[in-house]
């Protein structure tokens, strides 16, 4: 985390990797490059095929799968698997899970951004007794692996009456201190003179936070939102523990139940349609916000990109 603190906000906005492609190349390195490209392209194909195969299978009718066996593309492209999911006539409430996941992941990401940004302000811009001790405690506790608190966390959530409730997915993850470190290091790059000037003009902490700090830490908050959303959407172990009521599950936990359907070949199309639907939101987020994902990975690895 020390690296994170030292890399100031410069890293986030403009951290797209630069290619060093324009340099003199020897003949042997051209051949090497050609071999490398062939292998990379082959590997990229392997990476895409499972998604593509899931997609094409999701457009095959149950009868086609059962009677024609294996084929890469459907003989007839049909939407009936998706329609069955939308109409809720499938064995499992996949669209309901999808909606649950949207509510939980959005709720979690929004709460995370709000809580973490104001806490980051508190720890960097305000002076109060015990501040540094408190921050040290956050740091120390966050060093303990989450596997140790898994079982008691269930007990806590159960005591609050949150078993089978969206709150079990929205709130507990916000306890992490990692994002506060991130915001804190980002804020320390903003000149204090700006708050001082506003304070002289009679602005209080709330106004300074809303008017001055918030607009400037936007990039890091976007990063935190994206990772909180995708992290929550893809969380697997925790929701399989806190949800036993099928209709309240998020989709990631729900899909585990679908694994049983592999025995029934007529269900394969619906099975793949469900998987495809579960893949859409996070993939779409990446496509619109690729540079934020890239720059934040570099930031946490201590690289300026």
């Amino acid at each position, binding site marked *: *985390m020390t690296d994170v603190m*030292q890399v100031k906000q410069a890293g986030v906005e403009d951290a797209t*990797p*630069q290619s060093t492609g324009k340099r003199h190349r020897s003949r*042997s390195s051209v051949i*090497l*490059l050609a071999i*490398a*490209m062939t292998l*990379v392209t082959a*590997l*990229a194909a392997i*990476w895409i095929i*499972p998604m593509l195969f899931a997609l094409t299978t999701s457009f095959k009718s149950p009868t086609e*799968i059962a009677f024609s*066996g*294996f084929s890469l593309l459907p003989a007839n492209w049909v939407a009936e698997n998706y329609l069955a999911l939308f109409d809720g006539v499938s064995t499992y409430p996949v669209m309901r899970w999808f909606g649950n996941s949207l509510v939980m992941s959005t709720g979690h990401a929004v709460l995370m951004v*709000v809580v973490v940004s*104001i*806490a980051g*302000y*508190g720890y960097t811009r*305000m*002076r*109060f*007794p015990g501040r540094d001790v*408190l921050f040290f405690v956050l740091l120390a*506790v966050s060093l303990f*692996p989450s*596997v*140790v*608190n898994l079982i*008691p966390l*269930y007990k806590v959530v159960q005591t609050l009456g949150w078993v089978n409730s969206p709150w079990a997915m929205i*709130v507990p993850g*916000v*306890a992490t*201190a990692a994002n506060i470190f991130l915001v804190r290091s980002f804020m320390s790059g903003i000149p204090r003179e700006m708050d001082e000037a506003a304070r002289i003009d009679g602005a209080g902490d709330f106004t300074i936070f809303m008017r001055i700090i918030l607009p400037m830490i936007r990039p890091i908050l976007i990063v935190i939102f994206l990772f909180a959303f995708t992290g929550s959407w893809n969380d*697997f*172990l925790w929701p399989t*523990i806190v949800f036993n009521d099928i209709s309240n599950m998020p*989709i*990631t*936990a729900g*899909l*585990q139940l679908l694994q049983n359907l*592999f025995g029934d*070949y007529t269900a394969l199309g619906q*099975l793949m349609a469900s*998987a495809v639907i579960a*893949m859409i939101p996070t993939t779409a*987020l*990446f496509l619109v916000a*690729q540079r934020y994902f890239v720059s934040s*990975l*570099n930031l946490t*690895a*201590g*690289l300026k*990109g």
Partner: protein
Amino acid sequence: MKATLRALPFIGPHLVIFAIFALIPTVYGFYIAFTRWNIIGEPTWVGFDNFQQILFEPESPFYSQFRSGLANTLIFVGIAVPLLIVVPLLLALAIGGINDRGANIFQGVFYIPGLISVSAGALAWSLMFNRDFGFINNVFGTDISFTTTQPWAWVTIFTLTVWAGIGGNLIIYRSAIANVPEQLREAAQLDGAGSVRQFFAVVLPSIRFPLLYTLVMTTALSFNVYGQPVMMTEGGPAGTTTVLMMDIRDLAFGDGPAIAGIAAAMSVMLGLVLMAISAIQFRVMFRSSDD
């Protein structure tokens, strides 16, 4: 006092959530490792009994369960970690040679599976490996029951793991390699160093800190492996892919009465390994920031 009251609206919400969902459960997690507990009632203190059982009592059923869970986890870590480092490193080198636009497309292709949930990705790969309708058996003309025979069961788990796991490291390595000073490479080139020589003499030493960082992070993540074996093999065949997290989950939250004390003791053992790893991580990062 006034200063604290002013700060409370800002740090208070996080502190409350932190206390309830991080501090208390962490302390309690260590405590219940020394108790017999069924999650519903009150825990009874049993001292080191749980640790004694899983570590030193061959006649206890939890002894063999812990052993095999740990052994399978170590197999996973031992194979997955080198793959998750070497494959993205080679890819980063390869796509570093082409223009930005092309490289970004490749990077996206390799990164996106990391944003797909383990259960959705596993369903897609389960179809790929499906005995009758699967891509692999049909394209290669084989008839292998991948998920129920070894070593194929492990192969399916590592396939899913590498497919979903290389993206982050790839992005980090690509940036790190792009940051290697051009003069260093040119100097090596003038000295007559070929591409391979340049890699070991110039590139590798220059990216050692991001490399160490990813090694530590990847190792810690791999010790926590759970979703891939659950989804691909359900721990089979005959428990040979049942990893420690699956044992912990089953003991604490499986069917039948919860054996949370034993599960917590196993968690603490796994936690100790992870803490040792994060201690290394801290050393590495403090050193890298002095660099």
